[in-house]
């Protein structure tokens, strides 16, 4: 009898606890689960809710290099130039006009008049100069404009950037958020830019609230407020817009595409990307210093199959180190899988019985784990035993820069959209051990072409140069290009004007509800 009493009491306590937990749930602002099936969250007062991988690591544009930061910095800060999301051509941002000297050693810039920072301070040539110097002195982003020698202020709105050596794609480098113009008082906690949105508040690791900048020089299509929430899991982000917790899911998993497409109220927004995933050989190490081994491995891999399987049919098999949207991209079809040819080459190189090696990548990239498993399986066909090793990014960088790797997976973002940024650091012999040439590739002919390419303004000549470089790289097979990425975002149907930049950036001021 007493036991029943106890049991009743306990049950009551548990129910009470649960009820307490569920009470006043509905008063909550966001995140409540809506009905299953995904009624879109209504747009209240043009308030856009975005779920993305994360928040900016640092809201000081000169102290961050990660993509999460780049997305948000693009909304709060303006650089001098921007890339058009559709054409990848250069557009003017804070600069109103510009002129490059014929020898490609100096750039005259005229600033857009009447622009003010979020706190009302005016933007003038002096502020821009100081901001660019600040970039140059930043250990993080300084490399972007390390070719700048000095900057002269001509008058209130005019300045001249003098380069130490001819550098044709300088304007493209000035599109990077690392070169965005800052107010001198800018800090991580208090970002003062000129951008379309103003950071209102932040809950670390959780959300940022942005409000539209009424005095922005550009055109805001109709977003008053943005809530940018961090949600590291792709699946979770998708569930969030399905259940009505947000309007845009920034980056969704390729495997979720069919689900989004089948959903009445959700749209997929796809765009080409500037990112290429590749496998590199450590070409200074035996046996990969033998071109026959590299070719054998190239023939052993089925690149289209790798690309298709790992990326679920999104993007495309890589036909160059540069993606098709990058200027001066030149398409060369990958070698078709040919195991007989591969075994022949292995035998010629003296490895008929194969060898053991390692295949390394950064553990944070789950898709690389899939690529690696498939590559290892394909290599077994020519008796190569590749041990898969995943490293955390930090450890991985250490190994790769020290040249301790043998086979490695990595990707490259040609963030300026110009072949120079894509090919120079990765294929010039000055690019190793530090600088991006992780295959330790060295070819004097390529070096000469790359040097000529960045100092030439003539685009026909540049196209020729970069075609040759891409052909030489294909022949050397120091890098096996696997996949050109595709940007995948999902949004509820009422979100219009959604244009994705190949760099991954979305200019959210173009978005409106319709």
């Amino acid at each position, binding site marked *: 009898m007493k036991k029943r009493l106890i049991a009743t009491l306990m049950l009551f306590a548990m129910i009470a606890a649960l009820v307490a937990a569920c009470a006043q749930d509905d008063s909550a602002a966001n995140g409540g689960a809506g009905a299953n099936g995904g009624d879109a969250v209504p747009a209240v007062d043009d308030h856009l809710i975005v779920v993305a991988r994360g928040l900016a690591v640092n809201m000081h544009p000169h102290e961050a290099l990660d993509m999460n930061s780049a997305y948000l910095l693009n909304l709060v800060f303006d650089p001098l130039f921007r890339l058009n999301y559709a054409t990848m051509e250069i557009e003017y941002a804070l600069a109103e006009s510009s002129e490059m000297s014929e020898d490609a050693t100096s750039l005259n810039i005229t600033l857009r008049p009447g622009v003010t920072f979020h706190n009302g301070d005016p933007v003038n040539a002096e502020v821009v100069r100081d901001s660019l110097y600040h970039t140059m002195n930043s250990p993080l982003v300084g490399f972007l404009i390390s070719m700048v020698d000095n900057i002269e202020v001509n008058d209130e709105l005019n300045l001249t950037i003098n380069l130490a050596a001819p550098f044709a794609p300088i304007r493209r480098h000035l599109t990077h958020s690392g070169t965005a113009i800052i107010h001198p008082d800018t800090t991580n906690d208090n970002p003062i830019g000129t951008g379309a949105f103003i950071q209102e508040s932040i809950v670390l690791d959780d959300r940022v609230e942005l409000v539209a900048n009424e005095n922005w020089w550009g055109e805001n299509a109709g977003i008053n407020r943005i809530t940018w929430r961090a949600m590291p899991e792709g*699946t979770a982000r998708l569930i969030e817009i399905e259940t009505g917790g947000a309007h845009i899911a920034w980056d969704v998993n390729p495997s979720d595409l069919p689900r989004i497409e089948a959903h009445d109220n959700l749209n997929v927004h796809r765009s080409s990307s500037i990112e290429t995933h590749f496998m590199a050989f450590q070409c200074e190490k035996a046996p990969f210093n033998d071109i026959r081994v590299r070719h054998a491995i190239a023939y052993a891999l089925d690149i289209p199959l790798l690309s298709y399987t790992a990326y679920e049919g999104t993007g495309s098999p890589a036909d160059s180190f540069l993606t098709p949207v990058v200027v001066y991209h030149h398409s060369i079809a990958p070698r078709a899988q040919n195991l007989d040819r591969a075994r022949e080459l292995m035998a010629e190189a003296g490895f008929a019985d194969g060898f053991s090696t390692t295949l390394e990548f950064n553990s944070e990239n789950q898709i690389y784990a*899939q690529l690696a498993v498939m590559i290892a*399986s394909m290599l077994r066909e020519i008796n190569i035993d590749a041990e898969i090793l995943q490293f955390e990014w930090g450890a991985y960088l250490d190994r790769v820069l020290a040249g301790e790797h043998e086979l490695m997976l990595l990707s490259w973002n040609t963030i300026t959209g110009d072949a120079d940024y894509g090919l120079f650091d990765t294929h010039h012999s000055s690019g190793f051990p530090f600088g991006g040439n992780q295959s330790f590739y060295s070819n004097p002919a390529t070096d000469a072409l790359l040097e000529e390419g960045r100092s030439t303004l003539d685009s026909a000549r540049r196209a020729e140069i970069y075609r040759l470089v891409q052909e030489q790289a294909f022949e050397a097979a120091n890098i096996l290009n696997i996949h050109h990425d595709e940007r995948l975002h999902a949004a509820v149907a009422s979100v219009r004007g959604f244009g994705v930049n190949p760099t991954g950036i979305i200019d959210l001021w173009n978005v409106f509800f319709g």
Partner: protein
Amino acid sequence: MGDVTVNVNNESKKKRSQLHDVWRRFRKSPIAMTGLCVVVFMVLVALFADVIAPSDGRNPGYDIHNLGNRFQAPNAEHIMGTDEFGRDIFARVVHGSRVSLLVGFIVVTFSMTLGVIVGAIAGFFGKVAENILMRFIDVLLSIPPILLAISIAAAMRPGMMSIVLAVGIGALPLYARVMRASVLTVKEQEFIEAAYSIGASKFRIIRKHVLPNCIAPIIVQATMGLAYAILWAAALSFLGIGIQPPTPEWGAMLSEGRMYIRDHWHMVMFPGMAIAIMIFALNMMGDGLRDAFDPRLKK
């Protein structure tokens, strides 16, 4: 994982027949016997993994790709379905038992050996040694084990060794504490005094009298510790810092399947169940062992 009942009642007096008694009591508990049977079954599966899921000549049994056959739901041919490469999940779960058990055994051996030594020294010699050692154990205990494990794993080349150290160091305090507590209890008992009185040396006393009398709680702890080790190894692999692919590890399989959880639930269901069943069985066995060693609790 947390509940460790230290118990060294009068184990000392009658030893031989006691093992028999323990087994008799153990055998009587249906829960303990179920646990033992499942564990034995898992060990057999691990031993005969290559027979159950054989290699195709070039590829090991757990890594036979069939890209035309991806994401199959469980069916007659693939009773647990297939994964993103069309590999048979059953084969991977079977081979995974080998990895989990191996990791578990090495971790337990490693942390038990160290823990027993630390605990014995602390318990038996007391004073300065105890203070230093137990403060060190306190230090380890006050760092969340998962953070400790991640930090250790980050410091090393990934693989078996890093898992063993990462999990093993986290588990060390459990053994040290149990050992110290038992040594302290045993030390107080009269037969130790008797041994001193007939002039036995300290090390002889530790070896001949103290250690044998601490075996029961350590065995129980080791059984539970095996479960602990397998769980943590899986957790680390789940975070992507454990055993490297394509070697099948249950935690890693979970982590891979996580991306496809909405459409292909079988990819997370079966490896997860394998972990749960394995740990469940070990815990049942551990419970049974504890009750068998300490009948007082049962009666």
